[in-house]
């Protein structure tokens, strides 16, 4: 159930902006190279809009579209697709020198809910993650929207889902001793923004969660609520602040960190697939 750590290493410790994507029409994994070429031409054309024709200058951006067969939950899922944009160094001494400036990938982990309702011509890769300048995201997204008649939408994470993430990720086993769990709350209706950061030792959080959770492998909303309420009352005892009256904006654990704006950072390749499964589910619920 875990992806090959080597192949997914590029995913870790980067901030990924989350999008949901409706099924791609007439997308074929057999044509990834062509797609790369077309997307490259599209980006070049967009970049040159309004400028005079350039002569003798190589286009600075190289596009690579490839498949990531490791990133999926089951055989029902389509293999993930990776798009990378790299900039050729302007000092053209060495041709091999390329700098990765933007990457994005489409994936589906246990996305059966969506794919069963969809016809043959459609490919379900409901989750899209992008890292790099938004201008590139915009170009790549626009091209995909135009070519495969799909729709990109930012995927935000509600505070309720964040509490689920906090509980779920606390429960995951981690090999290495990792940093503390941190919850960030923002206090609404203040003239100045005020954030409260609440850090708990991983072991303490794990002990609390183990005490709350009854049946292994099955988690209920009540359990998540109890877990959070315990954390809140502990905080209240010390600081006399009701965290339940604030808004949870960020959760970070040893597994990953998630921000309510729809930004995620993966820290462990070990539980990558499980995290992606939850994100796929969120993306699908936004599409349907």
């Amino acid at each position, binding site marked *: 159930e875990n992806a090959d750590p080597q192949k997914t290493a590029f995913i870790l410790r980067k901030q990924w902006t989350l999008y949901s994507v409706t099924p791609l029409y007439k997308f074929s994994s057999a044509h990834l190279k062509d797609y790369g070429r077309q997307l490259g031409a599209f980006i070049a054309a967009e970049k040159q809009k309004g400028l005079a024709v350039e002569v003798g200058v190589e286009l600075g951006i190289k596009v690579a579209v490839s498949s990531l067969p490791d990133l999926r939950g089951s055989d029902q899922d389509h293999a993930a697709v990776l798009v990378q944009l790299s900039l050729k160094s302007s000092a053209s001494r060495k041709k091999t020198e390329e700098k990765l400036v933007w990457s994005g990938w489409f994936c589906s982990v246990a996305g059966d809910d969506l794919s069963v309702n969809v016809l043959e011509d*459609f490919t379900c890769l409901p989750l899209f993650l992008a890292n790099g300048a938004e201008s590139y995201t*915009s170009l790549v997204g626009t091209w995909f929207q*135009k070519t495969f008649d*799909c729709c990109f*939408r930012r995927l935000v994470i509600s505070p309720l889902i964040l509490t689920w993430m906090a509980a779920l990720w606390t429960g995951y086993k981690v090999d290495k001793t990792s940093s503390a769990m941190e919850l960030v709350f923002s206090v609404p209706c203040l003239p100045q923004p005020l954030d409260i950061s609440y850090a708990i030792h991983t072991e303490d959080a794990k002990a609390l969660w183990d005490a709350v959770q009854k049946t292994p492998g099955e988690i209920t909303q009540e359990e998540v609520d109890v877990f959070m309420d315990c954390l809140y009352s502990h905080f209240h005892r010390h600081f006399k602040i009701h965290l339940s009256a604030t808004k949870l904006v960020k959760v970070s654990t040893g597994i990953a960190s998630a921000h309510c704006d729809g930004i995620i950072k993966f820290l462990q390749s070990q539980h990558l697939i499980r995290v992606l499964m939850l994100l796929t589910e969120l993306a699908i619920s936004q599409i349907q």
Partner: protein
Amino acid sequence: MQRRQSSKHSKQPLRVHDSNQTDLSAWRKEGSINTEKTVQNQQSLSDDSKHNSLEQAVRFFEKVQDRVSLKKSEGLQKHLSTVESIGLERGLPPEVFDTLLTVALSGKLADTVNTRLLKSLVPASVIPESSVVSSVSWLCVSKCTSNVQLLFLRWLITMFDFIDCKEQLHALYGFFFSFIHDEKLCPYVCHLLYLLTKKENGKSIQLYELKKPLGMQPHLQALLSLYKVFRPELMSITLPGKMKTYFKNSEAPWKAAINAVRRRNQANSPISQALCLGTTQPPSRKRKWNAQLIIPASSANTQNLVGNSEKNSANDFFPVEQLQAFTQLVENIHCLEFPSQMGSVLTNPLLLHYMNCIKDESIYLRLYYWMGQTLQEECTWCVVENSQYEQEFKDFLEIIYKAECFLQEGFSSCEEFLCRSLPLWDGSCCRSQILRLMSWIPLSSFSEMKSHICDPLAQLFFTSSLYFKCSVLECLKELLQNWLNWHVVRLDSESDYQFCSQNTTLSGLVDGIAELIHFVGWISTVALRLENNCTFLLYFILDFYEIVCDMYLKYNLPLLIMPPAGVFYPALLSMDSVSLNQLCYIMYRYRTNLVAAKENELTKKKKQQFKFSSQTYQEYNQYIIAMVGCLWTSNVFQKDNHPQGVRLDDELLKKTGVQEFKNSFNIVYHPAMMGYAAHFLQQACPDDPTFNFSLIKGKKWNWYLDYLYAQGLEGLKLFVESSINRVSQASQNKARNVEV
């Protein structure tokens, strides 16, 4: 009233929304000349005076011979400001450019005048090429100052795309080229040449030698790079590769005016506006890249070009961009392909036609995803940041609605959107659009989402204004009408019925329609109480029942539902003859339908499985007893046996102190009819000023009836003639109601 009634008889079951059917002949990409015509047609009468003054101004400038001082000549001042105001506000027609350019470049007038003239030369539609050619000849003879030359070149660059044809202009390439040595003009000449250069111009490149004396300025570099693209073998020089802006911006003096004219013309022409939605982007917004309400332009699917070049399939397809007329659609229907983004069909009636012919589920799925996401993302009341873009969202909803009318069916993403967003809706934002979209919810999904739609709608209905209530009733009437039309169309193609209605059986359909009618009956009853039986509201309610009462005969649906007492009695005792007449018509149609149903039942023909319940007949009979007792036999207070009816004890009635209470609601004394009775008496007995209503009896009663019919109370006529059995001419006052 008469008009209403007559239209009623001619009403066809299948009523197509004419106004929303897009006129195909009108839908063509507007040629430049057409645009101009449309624009001029749209101009109202007040514009004629402007037109005249422009003509005068042009005639004045034609005649100008010698230098006229601006300060001294009032005529010049007046005509110049006319040209300026019209040019900058609405743009100038093509025919005036020749004269005005000639004046500006011939150097007859002072530079200030020439400059002002040039700056106001904004086209309403196009600039004729001939006028540009003649002005270039003026440029070459150098009658004007270098400042005017410069301004003219900048004007030409800015207006380049407005020139209707550029063949002759290309022929002047060499003349423009000669200006390249003029240091001041050089940047603009380079820009112009850059726009004009074609491959064959590369031959005559003498630009080589220019390089040294002129140096490598950006404008020259741009031109050289273009030559190098066309004629790489002639250009051995290497150009620095760094990208930069090559040309100075020339459009500054005209930019605002061009935009203003364009906006004005677009607003005046509905067709071009609809087209623009498809092709241009809304003014830039500071929003996320993908959160913009853009209906994609229809463009061919680029995927054909991918990979399968060996099949060479691209040639077999007719590109959607070229599809501009219905005949083209018919001729190429076998080799058409949908655009790469299905959303673009919404603004393209031809593609909507095509969509109607092609039964492919993927089309609907693509549209479903795109529309669903866009509606959710752009909804102005679900997403707080969107509130400033209400107009755009309105337009979008409008476009969806029009497409639905065109296809005569709703989009499923739209239903889901309504379900999701109606509970959050305030009832005012995009009101008419939302209500109209509701009328296209298909019956099959309605029963599932009744609670999602009806509950929030009822809440808003009860708490909102009279106008809102009427709009809701109107939209529910449309909804019922659409369902019934759908049913009739399916019945006509009986074989399809089984196939299409897998999840909507006839009994499902009947149940769904019954649910809707009961819902409307309920909210109508409450609304009449809230609004004190307002006539305006009653009109919309009875309008709804005009469809309900005819469902059996007109739409072949084995269902009839009587209005609730809360609607029937307010209409019967209404102060307004319009409502009463409408009620009479409705009761007459109920009777006709019920009689037909009974006959069919007796002959045991079709539809035995659906019998009207005896309750329906019973309700009808109760109502008809009340109505006849009220309007005709004056015994309603005794005879009415409806539990919510007006049966009253004589004792109680006597306490009211009203004399002759028995007949106080017959066609003479009824508050809705008294006006007619009074008017009738005035004509029948002009000598009697006492308004003795009791005179209307016997022969006069018949005359009075004829008088009422002549006043356009058609509904009353139909009702009296069908439901009241007038035993004999001798005893007209004794009438017996016919019970079915």
